[in-house]
């Protein structure tokens, strides 16, 4: 685990995180921008990185920008949006070959850094507006991206579960924004928002690869400077406690029913029982040795996929499965029984030991990739904590059965959502 040492260097307006490792043949930059998740901004935040990555002042067309990326040995540049608790995170990732594996000696790290800086700070702008044509095209793409969720029933039913479960909370907002808010955005209002985001968001840059911290810092000094700011902190909104479990059935022309169940864990990253929650999830539904997989799939033959996962910063757990339309009651029954079993401590020491081994393995595997490592380290930025990776593993391994039972008893079933076929509803 020596490759995970993260140097954090305060820069002007952002933090630089450098991870020096020689295990990759490429170097990776990840630029992260974090702001509270709000209805007002979420759609603009989804559109903004698309516009920024499609052209810049020096490379004013997508063809020009993409040709330059190809020229840099196929450097990849892509954007990604995420919800972490009630924050909305924009990420730009640029990955570029390390020239020591090439016969060419172009200083690719520097070129890559310059290009990232160009994309972030020198957009294709006319006066006080982004290039009109680019904004129009990217609005169309964003609308299509939002609309395409409907066509992927697994994603769709997860989105619908969150909309129903977190109805009056920001977390119900879609990560790509809301379709009805796209049209009103203009090249001017988006440019205003760009200035606002770069002056108010919490900004972090991760650089991972066979790099020298000092060299990266001096490049960063030259290439990226922003106003100093105090990032906005939010307190998770009041959870809407429901009197009884909410059950939603939606009918569509599908062959397989999608069952998505949402729970409130009442535990978030940084809480003392967070690692016990990770273990709970592992025994309950996170893996192929978990109770859900064994009971719903292997014993009852009801599903091909069935699993649970955590949302660490909002305090949610989601179960998802694809089942035959007629098996709804049986599947829901088995899943509810597994939570009851967990609450009663009905799991063996072997299940506990097994789950610890698998989670330890999962953490170590995740940090083998530059992306996985960045995501794990970024938890600390989101939660405002300083939990070292070693501590993840030792705290998880210390967890006792009693602590897991206590966690199980904090977890509350909130909403059961079922996307069902037209023929099954009688």
């Amino acid at each position, binding site marked *: 685990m020596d490759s995970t040492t993260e140097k954090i260097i305060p820069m002007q307006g952002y933090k630089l995180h450098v991870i020096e490792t020689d295990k990759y043949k490429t170097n990776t930059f990840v630029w992260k921008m974090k702001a509270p998740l709000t209805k007002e901004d979420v759609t603009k935040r989804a559109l903004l990185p698309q516009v920024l990555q499609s052209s810049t002042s020096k490379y004013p067309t997508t063809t020009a920008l993409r040709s330059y990326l190809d*020229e840099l040995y*196929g450097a990849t540049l892509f954007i990604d949006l995420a919800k972490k608790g009630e924050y909305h995170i924009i990420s730009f990732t640029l990955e570029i070959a390390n020239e020591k594996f090439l016969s060419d000696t172009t200083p690719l790290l520097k070129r890559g850094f310059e290009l990232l800086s160009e994309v972030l700070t020198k957009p294709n702008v006319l006066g006080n507006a982004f290039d009109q044509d680019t904004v129009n095209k990217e609005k169309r793409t964003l609308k299509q*991206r939002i609309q395409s969720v409907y066509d992927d029933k697994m994603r769709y039913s997860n989105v619908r579960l969150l909309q129903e479960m977190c109805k009056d909370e920001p977390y119900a907002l879609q990560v790509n924004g809301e379709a009805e808010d796209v049209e009103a955005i203009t090249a001017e209002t988006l440019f205003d928002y760009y200035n606002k985001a770069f002056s108010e968001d919490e900004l972090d840059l991760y650089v991972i690869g066979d790099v020298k911290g000092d060299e990266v810092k001096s490049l960063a000094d030259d290439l990226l400077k922003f106003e100093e700011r105090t990032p906005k902190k939010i307190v998770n909104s009041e959870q809407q406690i429901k009197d009884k479990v909410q059950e939603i059935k939606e009918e569509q022309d599908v062959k397989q029913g999608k069952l998505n169940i949402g729970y409130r864990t009442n535990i978030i990253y940084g809480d003392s029982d967070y690692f016990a929650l990770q273990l709970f999830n592992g025994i309950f539904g996170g893996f192929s040795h978990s109770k859900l997989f064994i009971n719903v799939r292997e014993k009852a*033959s009801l*599903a091909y996929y069935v699993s649970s996962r955590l949302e660490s910063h909002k305090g949610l757990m989601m179960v998802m499965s694809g089942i035959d339309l007629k098996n709804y009651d049986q599947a829901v029954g088995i899943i509810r029984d597994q939570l009851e079993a967990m609450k009663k401590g009905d799991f063996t020491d*072997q299940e506990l030991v097994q789950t610890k081994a698998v989670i330890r393995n999962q953490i170590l595997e995740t940090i083998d990739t530059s992306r996985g490592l960045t995501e794990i380290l970024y938890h600390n930025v989101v939660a405002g904590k300083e939990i070292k990776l070693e501590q993840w593993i030792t705290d998880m391994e210390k967890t006792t059965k009693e602590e897991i039972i206590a966690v199980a008893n904090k977890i509350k079933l909130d909403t059961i959502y079922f996307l069902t076929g037209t023929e099954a509803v009688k």
Partner: protein
Amino acid sequence: MEKINFDQLQEELYHEKLSNGLNVYILPKKGFNKTFATFTTKYGSIDNNFVPFGKEDYVKVPDGIAHFLEHKLFEKEDGDVFQQFSRQGASANAFTSFTRTAYLFSSTSDVEKNLETLVDFVQDPYFSEKTVEKEKGIIGQEITMYDDNPDWRLYFGLIQNLYQNHPVKIDIAGTIESISHITKDLLYECYNTFYHPSNMLLFIVGPVDPAKFMDQVRDNQEKKDYKEMPEIQRKFEDEPIQTAEQKQVLEMNVQTSKCLIGMKALHVDQSGAELLKNELTMNVLLDLLFGKSSKNYNQLYNEGLIDETFSYDYTQEQGFGFAMVGGDTENPDKLADQLKNMLFDAKKGTTFTEEQLDRAKKKKIGGFLRAVNSPEYIANQFTRYAFNDMNLFDVVPTLEKITMEDLKSMASEVISEERFSVCQVIPKK
């Protein structure tokens, strides 16, 4: 054990062919926590007509049986192998493709034990009528899941358009009807024919000591009694050059239409260096024609015919091959027409500049470096290449040799009306 050096990449590969015919490759990766291993048989969904081991006549087996076998191999008399892997801190999985079935694990501790588990479970089948019946429910749900997935339906719809007889047109998982005919005896028949070590390849990549692991695998294999295996006889019906259908439109419960065009490959008898060159040339051609920096991409994007789902790909294996281009679109007919025109313009001899070709090669070379960061990529792709008598580490030198002439002759030869087809998914009325 032989050692092969790749100086430019700073990698070393170790290889040994064991006495029972099993090929073992080990690639040490310093600095990584994880070891990843795949144990793969050259047996996939297309191998449905063959002479079973110890018999004389060809048999035709139900669609989806290779994939079914993959599921069932995890179950043993005393329980599930997933359980054992997770007790040993590993994560295990498997997949079936047209031409391969691969079993794999990754772990950051107990690697020797996990490797032993992987090799032993694959070499020790246990099929019973009861567990076979139970699996039909699970795989039935897997099939239904894909039935509702428009991208999968589009992809397979296009392959079905392209191929008249070749079993590549059969869905890898089969259908609920076809898997109903699978029995434990049929599974054993397939297993005994295709899971002989001489038809398999073991690849290990991670922070490992190659000599020690090679010894372990050799010892393990020497304890098992494998008889020499005659060459496997597989039969494929003759496939005409022409496509089966020129167009197919699927109506589904979607809001956005999808359009994919396809070209059926020529020269599908290639293997080795010839196949590698052909495949890479086609990939470079597609990059130049449809990559994000291409004129065509820019035009299609500006016209609102494509979005970020747009992609292209070329696959070629022994006996079949296809290029595919497309994605989500507001106007599936117009997109099909435009893509077709672009292809046929290239056939007529649309020229690229040397500078563009050079850039396309650089892009591919960088992409290869990025890919070899991934132990999964190395193990899976190396195996695929080896089964086609190619070497993954020849990619860069082969790319460097591609010329403008290669691209021109590829375009003029492969692109043809009779091998072109379109598949679309549109919203149900």
